[in-house]
């Protein structure tokens, strides 16, 4: 007997951080979450599983396109035709979703109650599923605590959307402790909410399946679902199956030995060539250039050309599979070229002024206000907010920008060939 445990489908949630450019594999990125969902259904059919467990967050909370729900319903119908039962709980996103409220799902899909823990016993399958859906977006009480006792003679599975005892980058919803879950006596805890796959315990199994399809550069690596085999004696085999269609990857290139801009590009190109040889699906790559390098200033000065070149050879090497998500410059100037200690002369005074701005929030804010007030008024919230948000009144964000400003000014003042 088999079941599949999946979570955090976030259907139709767009992949983020992908600025479009000529040659980018746009079509491959479209509807990635739907195709991953189809892969999930395909896995259930291919493995002839008996049960599919979905641990919440089928849709984005703010996603209002009802066709997403209809699509999901159609996919569940495919499982109904194959006799696969589906049990799901609502996660925080589902609780907030308009789709969830209105969608009528096929009769092979069981949505567990939002009011109290509920148990579905599939006697013919020898399994009982316990779980409770989120009633609201932010459920802060410990749902697991009230889950029923295990049912003897059956394999007991707990279906829960939770952060357990906290996971970085995830809201602490439905908190609980691992010990609590382990001591419940269930055979398997099918958890959702945390997007990185994680096996918290193997006796019993406590598993975050991770999300089905990564959505941004912080969700790197393969994504998918967990295929679980069981018998009357309990869980017999657990394995992860990659089902994602687009993957995010980080590529770090050390430019310590790069003698010039072209050499730096060549290093990056080599790294992309290696990556391209090892990817088997569309991959969004974040290129991070590091190292104490002689080309530090040139990279900053020619960041646009750098990005365009990287995109070009990603297109060239990737055979339609590589998308340059972002190029981050984390290089440092060579010690012999460092000018941070210079305090006299026109150059020293310029650097001193930048240094002063870094430590003077008021002056920095004033500078930003005077130079950027016109842009600030026009920036949409999507650009202002979030981790990568352009918070023009945030001194920390502005200070980070001053490093790039310094490099830009030094290169402009002293020419392309001049080191910083």
């Amino acid at each position, binding site marked *: 007997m088999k079941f599949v445990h999946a979570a955090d489908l976030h259907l*139709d*949630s*767009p992949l*983020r*951080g*992908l*600025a*479009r450019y000529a040659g980018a594999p746009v079509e491959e*990125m*479209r*509807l990635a979450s*739907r195709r991953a969902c189809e892969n999930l259904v395909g896995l259930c059919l291919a493995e002839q599983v008996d049960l599919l467990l979905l641990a919440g967050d089928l849709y984005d909370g703010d996603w209002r*396109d*009802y*066709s*997403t*729900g*209809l*699509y999901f*319903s159609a996919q569940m119908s495919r499982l109904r035709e194959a006799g696969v039962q589906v049990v799901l709980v609502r996660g925080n996103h589902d609780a907030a979703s*308009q*789709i969830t409220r*209105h969608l009528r799902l096929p009769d092979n899909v069981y949505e567990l109650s939002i009011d109290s823990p509920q148990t579905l016993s599939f006697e013919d399958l020898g399994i009982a599923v316990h779980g409770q859906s989120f009633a609201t977006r932010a459920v802060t009480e410990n749902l697991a605590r009230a889950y029923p006792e295990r049912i003897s003679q059956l394999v007991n599975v707990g279906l829960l959307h939770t952060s357990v005892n906290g996971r970085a980058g995830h809201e602490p919803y439905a908190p609980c402790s691992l010990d609590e879950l382990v001591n419940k006596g269930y055979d398997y805890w099918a958890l959702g909410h945390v997007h990185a796959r994680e096996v918290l315990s193997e006796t019993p199994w406590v598993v975050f399946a991770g999300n089905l399809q990564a959505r941004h550069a912080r969700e790197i690596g393969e994504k998918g679902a967990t295929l679980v085999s069981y018998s009357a004696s309990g869980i017999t085999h657990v394995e992860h199956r990659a089902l994602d269609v687009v993957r995010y990857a980080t590529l770090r290139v050390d430019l310590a*030995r790069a*003698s*010039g801009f072209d050499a730096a590009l060549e290093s990056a190109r080599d790294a992309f060539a290696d990556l391209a040889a090892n990817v088997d699906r569309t991959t969004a790559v974040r290129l991070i250039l590091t190292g104490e390098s*002689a080309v530090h200033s040139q990279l900053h000065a020619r960041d*646009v050309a750098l990005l365009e070149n990287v995109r070009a050879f990603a297109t060239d090497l990737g055979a339609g599979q590589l998308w340059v998500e972002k190029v981050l410059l984390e290089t440092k100037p060579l010690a*012999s*070229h460092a*000018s941070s200690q*210079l305090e*006299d*002369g*026109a*150059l*020293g005074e*310029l650097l001193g*002024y930048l240094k002063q701005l870094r430590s003077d929030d008021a002056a920095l804010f004033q*500078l930003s206000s005077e*130079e950027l007030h*016109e*842009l600030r008024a*026009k920036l*949409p919230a*999507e*650009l202002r907010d979030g981790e990568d948000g*352009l918070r023009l009144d945030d001194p920390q964000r502005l200070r980070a*920008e*001053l490093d*790039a*400003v310094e490099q*830009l*000014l*030094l290169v402009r*003042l*002293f*020419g392309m060939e*001049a*080191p910083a």
Partner: protein
Amino acid sequence: MKLLRLDLLAFGPLQGTTIELASEAPCLHLVYGPNEAGKSTALRALHGFFYGIPEATPDAHRFRASELRVAALLQDARGRELYVVRRKGRKQTLAAADGTPLAGADASWITAGMPEAQFRSMFALSYDTLEQGADELLGSAGELGQSLFSAGTGGVGAHAVLESLRQEADALYRPRGRTQRLNAALTAFEDAKRSVREQSIRAEAFAEQQRSIEAAEEDASRLQLQRQQLMAERVRFERARRVLPLLAKRAELRRQRAELGEVAALPGSATEDRRLLERARRDASLRIEHVDGEIAKLEEARAALAVNDAWLEPVNQVQLSELRDRLLQYRRAQRTLPVRRDALSRAQGELHAMLERLGLQVEFAQIDSLRVSRPLEAKIREYARRGETVISRRAELARQLAAKRDEAAKQRGGLVARRFDPGSTVRQIELPLSPERVSLTLDQVTEFERASVELERELRAATDKLRQEEEALERTRRDLEALANAGQPPTELQLTAAREERRVLSLRLREELRVNARGAAGGERAVRSQSSVAGSVTPGARSGVANAGNAPEAGSEDVRRTNVRGARSLELPVDAGARGVGGSPAAVLGAGEPFDLAGAEELLRLLDAQSETADVIADRLRREATRVAEFARLRAAHAGCERQLEKLRSAAAALAERARDSERRWLELCSRAGVAPRAPGLMRAFLTEHRAEALRLDSLEREASRLEREVETESAQQENWRTSWNELVAKIGSPADASVAEVEAMLTGLHDVFARLDATKNDSREIEVLAHEVAAFERELAVLQARLLPDAEPAVWDAVADALLARDHAERRAADRRGQLEAQLTARGAERERALHEHAATERELAVLMQSAGVTNLSALEAAEEAARRARVLDESLAQVQAELLAAADGFEPAALEGELGSTVVPEVQARLQEVEDALERVEVEREAAVHTLESRRAGLARLRESRGAADAALDAGAELENARLLAQRYVRVKLAFGVLAREVERYRERHTGPILRGASALFSQLTQGAWRGLEADFGDSDEPVLICVRSNGDRVGVRGLSAGTRDQLYLALRLASIEQLSAARELMPLVMDDLLVHFDDDRAKAALQALGEFASVTQVLLFTHHQRLCELAREALPESKLRVHRLAPPPTATRELTLVRP
């Protein structure tokens, strides 16, 4: 920081080139290097020394990159000096003179902590940078802050940078712009967001869509029901319209059937059956009549036929058939018999001829007696083959025997010819051909050779030993001679006397010195006396001293001479002895001269020297004693050598005697062997070869003997064969000496004879058979003719045969015709019987018909048949109408319909039907519209289900957002950079206008040779602070009013003033300029050189140029103390020596 020396150890084409830059006072260093001298290389080397040699250097050609080295001796402001070597590499590229790596503070010491960018922009000047700075002044229109900042930083300049940043920012974004990239991206993002909203399907919209579908489904269902009702109505009226005529028709048919009453139940085929029966009865009658006529005709023809049945008897027919078969054969035999008999006669004649050719005279009938049986022939042929083998083998053996004999004869002749040394003594001596004897001789040779070698070795060893002993004897002899020639050493007595005399003299001398010293101490007299003594020593006295000094040496004169002659290795100070003893006290005291204190002291010093000399002589005497002992040892060794030599000579003589004895025995051995004595090696080679040849001859002769035996055996066998052969061939009539070929020819001839004989006999037998068959045929023909054609003429057998066959043919044809007629008669009879039978059957069936119709005659039967037919038609019509009614009634009972319709008429039904049709048409239209609406709404729902537009639009929106984010980030960066730089320029102006402007003003005046009085700050058209140049006449001119050259000088003045201003804050790097003044005229170049010479007091100034003229101008402009000119020599092609470049 300044350079005291720059060593280009290995850089570009330069090797070991040094530029000495040390000077007592600050001065301008003008480094002149003509083309190819390496000026640019030196500049790169200087820069590489300070900040590292670039990764991609163009200077790694003569030397590998890892070999590049630049070194310099540096001095900082506090006077500290440090020699530093820079190599090309990534880490720890600096080292002290002793190779210790420099890092951290030590490494930054060489650049005074100045970053490369600042050095490049401020302290590395070329005409290009000068021009660039001047352009920057022009671009900024002399804006004061930008001008000062640009001169302070060098590089591109604030104005150009600010302008480029502003342009880039404007190209990215403007508050009310549309085409700027960020504006466009934000617009695209908003559009994409709108698209997401528009393409998103709200749940309510989906529910509404579902509700509208349900409503449409209701409409469609209602209309469908109406349609169904109307269609049912239409069906009912259509049924009525169909049924009403059928009901009327059925009533009429029923009436007609009733009128017919009871009718015989004749089948529908009754009339046809009857007609057929009547026709069959008539046909049968006609056929009977016809057959009767034919039978009569046939019987008549049969009666007319005459057939001879006896002729047709089987016995006759068999014989006639054989006659027919054999007639052709008979006629062919008649033709061929004479021909074959002639041929047989000719063949017998040829047989006789063949026998004659074989030499056989026998009668024809006896020929068979010559027939050779197969076993005999096989035996003869076997003997023939064996005879050939025996003869040929014997011949082959005889040939081989002859060849072997020839070869043995040649080998024997060769051996005789190979005799060693064919001299008269040896000629008669046959060489032993036996291998054993040869082997014995070889052993002797080997033994003699071994003994000779051993003797020779011993003799050589004895000779070597003898020579060594002779050499040793010679050495001892020479050593003895040397020692014997060394002279006699002084005796002990002589030495003791000499020592005593010296001691006495010494004591006396010392006493005299003490006495005279007391008398002469102090006082003028003593001084004078001392002076007179010093000046009164006569040459003769000094000579006497020298002579007296020779006396103690007299005894050792022989030894001294010996040493001088043959033993320089002793290195005795013979000259020192002569000098030292020159101050003899006896000579001094014996002179009676006034005491000379200085001379006495000299005598004392000589006395000491004499003592030392005496010690040396004593040592020499001890060595002489040793030599004597050595002499004795050598004498003993010499005698030993002589004795050993004598023994060795005796041993050598004994060995020589043994050698001679061995030689004699060898000669004797050779003599016994009959060969000339030769060297054992040659003798052994000859004997070995001779032995091989003798073995070969022996082998050849043994082979010849074997062949002879085999020839004899084969001859006996051949003789035996001949005897048997003769006996055999006699049996076939061949002569006794017939050869194999002759016998084989005989056998072949006999074969031919008997083959021909057998063929002749066969022909004869066949002729007899043919003749017999002809006779038998004629006999049988005569018998047949006698029985069947007795009238025919006998003996003309051909005609008889033809007549018999013709008659037979006619008889058989008549018999055949008769048979045919009888068969026809039988067939006609049978046909008549069948016709009679058919006639009776039809009669019976007609009777049955009439009986079933209840009539007794045929006419009544026909009436009954008509009544039955009409009743049957009416019944069928009724059934058909009934069936139509059932079909038209749609399953209803016709009776029920008849009751329902009652008196309804068709027109009335038609009108109602039309009304229903109209209503149905209307409902159909409405229903189709409702269905279309429903399908459309369902399709819309399906589209909603399959929609992905919002998701796609969201992806697009995300992409646009990221694009906008990149552009916005860039805009933020550019704008902040602009803001920072603009503010810093202002800050710089506010801080430094006064001091820099003062310094620059003076420099500007100096550089322009006073044409311009100086510089001032003022405000421009937009109230911005600007730079104003003041002419000597007081005119005020903005930067844009200056000539290009003057702008260059203005920028240089500002630049130098900025450096000077910087000097107050920190230690400076040397100012390095590359052909800075290349476009200055001579006057202004001189002015500039003068200014640079003075600027050397601010920091070290190095001006590189490849213009000789500049050197001349510099010498004119600057005093020697302010100028050092260094000339770079072109690098030698393949030298590694240091090239020193001196001022």
